[in-house]
């Protein structure tokens, strides 16, 4: 699962470089301003996630996206729970700062 997230992040970075124009085209099909806004917000969250160090991104992804408990996420990453929570705290504070700057 950990590797899946790393691969995902790499693939997305490549996609952004190669397929940016196509992405722009896709949003034409989305209906209405609300959908567009959600699309843009999702994009900015993904970019902020991509800027996190791997450790922190994985911790945030497992807990917030995959919905694992702290215990489960720590087991997946093979780190103590205390390490997981400090990565979560640093990662989320970095995301908050990043998204606040973008808004």
């Amino acid at each position, binding site marked *: 699962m950990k590797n899946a997230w790393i691969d995902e992040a790499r693939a997305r970075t490549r996609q952004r470089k190669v397929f940016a124009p196509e992405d722009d085209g896709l949003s034409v099909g989305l209906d209405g301003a609300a959908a567009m806004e959600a699309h843009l917000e*999702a994009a900015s969250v993904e970019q902020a996630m991509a800027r996190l160090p791997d450790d922190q991104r994985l911790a945030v992804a497992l807990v917030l996206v995959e919905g694992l408990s702290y215990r489960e996420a720590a087991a997946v990453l093979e780190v103590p729970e205390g390490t997981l929570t400090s990565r979560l705290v640093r990662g989320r504070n970095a995301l908050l700062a990043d998204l606040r700057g973008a808004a």
Partner: protein
Amino acid sequence: MKIDDRKLIAYVDGELDAAGRAEVEAAIAADPVLGVRLDEHRLLRGKVAGAYARVADESVPARLMAAAQAGAKANADNVVKLADRRKPPPPPKVSRPVAWPAWGSMAATLMVGVVAGYLLSQQTPAAVAPGFDGALVARGGLAKALDKNLSAGSGPVRLGLSFKTADARYCRTFQVDAQRAAGIACREGARWVARMTTEAPRPTQGFDYRTAATATSPAVLAAVDAMIEGEPLDRQGEIAAKARRWRD
């Protein structure tokens, strides 16, 4: 009593016990700044989950599964209908190259149908999709309904029975009309993992009210019988379980 970010975030993630929650709530009541901080973290949690829920929806056609296939099949019908309903192309004025324009416009018509069908299938996100560890995880509206709704016999997502398993997990039977999917989802950590899914019977018209039991298909009920420990939760039980976020 100082509440640090670690504790605040654990509170947002539902990781604190009752004493920890009470401590955070008391601190927030006393300190508005802390309340703002809490809201920020709550909002972030929603944003991150939302951003990737959309991603999961995007790639659904690539990782179709039984539940999603029912929906896709229904949408495939639209391709044919749309193509059939389009007016036949006007007869070409020039008589010589008859064959090519006719075939060309037919191909174009079909293309429109295919694209429309694809877009329609995109508008119905899968109710369950594989998580990164391969477990089938409830997503979007279904996940929200499993979290928040009490059992009810109407609405786009119907929840039939809530019960506890021998290994002390909460499980709920669900039926999603849009995708004609039904099954059982069990709480694992913060996720609802589908233990079984099946094709739901076609939604019947004109029966807005029904008992929880009749809304549940026989295949699902049989699976419930195999998993359940004790009796299904009554309404009070559901309210209590929901308040504990379906964890014990």
